[in-house]
C-alpha cells in the first residue's frame, strides 16, 4: 500500500493506493489517525484501492469515530468499485459520507 497526504483549503486529503489488508492496515490506521489528529476536516481518497478487507474497513471506522467525537469532518471521496462493494457488505456505505469527486468533498466538509 502507498499513500499521499496533501492539504487544500485547510482540508487534509489523504489518498490510499493499492491493497489495504491484514499486512498493511496497521499502517493505514496510523496514517488515518495522524490525519484526524491534525484537527482539520479529512477527505480519504479511495480511488486507487485495489483491495480492502475487514481490517482496512476497521481502520476507516476507527478514524471516523475519533473525528466525530471531536466534531470533526471525515468523508470518503472517489471510492473504487471494489472498496464500495466491501463497504456495502458491511452496510457502512450509509454510515460514511461519500463524495464522487474531490471538489464535491472539499465543498462538503469545508
Amino acid at each position, binding site marked *: 500500500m502507498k499513500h499521499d497526504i496533501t492539504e487544500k483549503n485547510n482540508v487534509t486529503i489523504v489518498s490510499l493506493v493499492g*491493497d489495504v*489488508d*491484514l*499486512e498493511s492496515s496497521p499502517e493505514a490506521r496510523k496514517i488515518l489517525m495522524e490525519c484526524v489528529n491534525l484537527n482539520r476536516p479529512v477527505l480519504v481518497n479511495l480511488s486507487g484501492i485495489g*483491495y480492502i*478487507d*475487514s*481490517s482496512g*474497513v*476497521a*481502520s476507516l*471506522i*476507527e478514524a471516523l*469515530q475519533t473525528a466525530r467525537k471531536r466534531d470533526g469532518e471525515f468523508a470518503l471521496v472517489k471510492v473504487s468499485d*471494489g472498496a464500495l*462493494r*466491501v463497504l456495502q*457488505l*458491511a*452496510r*457502512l456505505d450509509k*454510515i460514511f459520507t461519500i463524495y464522487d469527486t474531490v471538489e464535491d468533498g472539499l465543498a462538503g466538509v469545508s
Partner: protein
Amino acid sequence: MVKQAAKKIPTGGDVENFSDHLELLALMGRDFAASMDIEETLNKGLARITRHLNAVGGALFLLDETGEKLCCTSCSGDTEITGLTLGGDEGIVGYCVQNNIAEIVRDVTKDPNFQQAVDKQTGFVTKSILCAPMSVHDQCIGAIELVNKVGGDGLFSEADLQLLQALSSSAALAIINARMAEALVEQERVKRELELAAEIQRSLLPDKRSESFPVHGVNLPARMVSGDFYDFFPLDDGRICFNLADVSGKGMNAALLMAKTASLFRCLGKTIHEPGLLLAKINAEICETATRGMFVTMVGGVYDPKTGHVRLANAGHEPPLFHDANGAFTALPAEAPPLGISPLLVEDGGFPETELDLKGGTLYVFTDGLTEGYVEDGSELQVDGLKKLIEENAALSAPKRLDAIIARINRDDQALRDDLTALIIEDSAQPEMLALHPGVEIIPSDGAGGEKQLKLKLKFPSQPNRLKLVRSLVSATAELCGCGQEASQDIVLAIDEACQNVIRHAYKDEPNGEIILEIRHNEDEMIILLRDFAKTVDTAVIRPRELDDVRPGGLGTHFIREVMDEVAFMPPPEDGGNLLKMVKRISHET
C-alpha cells in the same frame, strides 16, 4: 355541400373502350407502378393495347441477356407464338429493335423484312404490322408488335403507330424498373447472408474475459467477414491454449477456410497440448481438403499462468513480439511454412516449437493488418511503431492497452486496409512474487480420481504478508474456473478473511503456523477448504457481529457469510487443528 364524383378510372381487364388514349396510358402507368408481378402486368397491358388499337393479335418480344436473340414472352388475341425466338435483327421486330424506331407496314407482302416462315408455321395470315421498340433513352429492351386491324381494310394507320410508341415506352420503363428492383432484392439478400456469416464468425471468437484474465484478443474484419481469427481456452490443468491465424486472401472463401481452421484448432487443441504436434495435425487436415493456392499462417501455443511458461509453434506467421519485464523486445520468427502448403514439409515430430518464460512480461501476437495498418499521417505502423505504442501504453491494463493500440489503426476517418487481429498474453509475475514470498508452496495435484476437481492447493505460513500472493493465486484460479469478476472478488474476500481469522484467532498471530488452502471446482460450485493446525477453536464463540454496532473488528466473519453460499466448520481433524469449508455457487460466463 356538393359532392363531385371523381372520374372513375376503369379497373380490371373487362373494360374494353376508353374515352381517350390518355386514359389508357394513365391506367397502364398505374398498373405498372403497383405491380408485384411484372409478367402478369405485361400480359394484361398487352391485351389492353391489342384491344384498344383494334388489332387481331399482339406479341411482346424481349431481347435476351446477350442482346442477340429476341424472344416472345407474351401474346394476346389470335396469335399465339409465346416462346418463339428470333435473331436479334430478324424480321420487322428485329429491325425496329436494332434501329430503335417504330415501323408501320401497311401491307406485309410489299416489305422485304417480313418473315413468312412464322405464318407458314402458325397458319395465320399476316396482312399489316405495327411495331414499336420498347426503349427508354437509348436502351432498347424489346418491342411490341401488333398484327392485322379488325374491320375495315385490316390495315393500321399512322395515329395507331404513335399511340403504340407511347404505350411501349411506358412498358419499357416498367420492365427496367422491375429488373432494377429485382437486382436490389438480390443485393439485399446477399448482404443479409453476409451478415449472418459475419455473426457466425464472431461466435467462433472466444468471449471477452474480465480484466484480470491473462489473455485478451481483438478481431476487426476489413470487410464484413474476416480471414483472421484468434482463440483461447483454459485446459483442465489450468494452462491456457491460444492461437492466432491469418488465412490468405479476403472475402468469403477466406472466411470459410477461417471457420474450418478455427474449428479444427478448438477441437484438436483440447486433446493435443503440444503446439508443434497440434499445428502438424491441423496442417494435415487442411492439406487434405484445401483449395488450391489458399494457406493459413498461424501461431498456436500453450501458456501456463502458474509458471509464466509459454510453448508455441509458428507456421509462417508474423513474428510475435515478447516485451519482457525489463522493457526489452524480442521477436519470435516463424521456423515453419504456413499450414495448407504441404503435409510433407513437416517432420514427424511436428512443427518446431519455441519455449519462453514470460517472467512478468507480455507476449503480443498479431496479423499484418496491425503492422501494415495506416496511422494518422498515412504511413504504416510497422513493428517499430507497435513497440512505441506498447511502451506508451504500458501503464494500462492488458485489454485497455490492446484497445489503445487498435484505436490508432481503426479510426473513423479511414477504412481498414486489412483484417486486424491481435492477441495479448500478460504474465502477472507470480513466479517473482513466489520468490519474494518464500514459504508459499503450490502443491501439484496428482490428477488421480477425485483429485480431478482440485484446482489449487497451497501451503503457507500464518503471516499477513503472504496474503497478497494467496489472493492473486485465488483470483487467477477462480477466473480459470469460469467465475465472473464479482464472484472471483467474493471468493478472494472470503478466503482472505478466513485466513486472517486463522492467523489472528487460531494461531493468535504466532507466525510459524501452517495453513493449507484447497480450491475445488465442479460444474457449478467452488468449494474451498481451509485447514490449520492450531488448537481447535470452539466454533460456538465465532459469530458475525451485529451490524448496527458500528465499531472496528468482527466484520470478517460477516463478510464470509455474506458472500459465500455455504460456510461450515467441519469436525476437527484427527491430528488436530481446524477445517473450514466454504462453498460459492457460480453461474458460468460461457
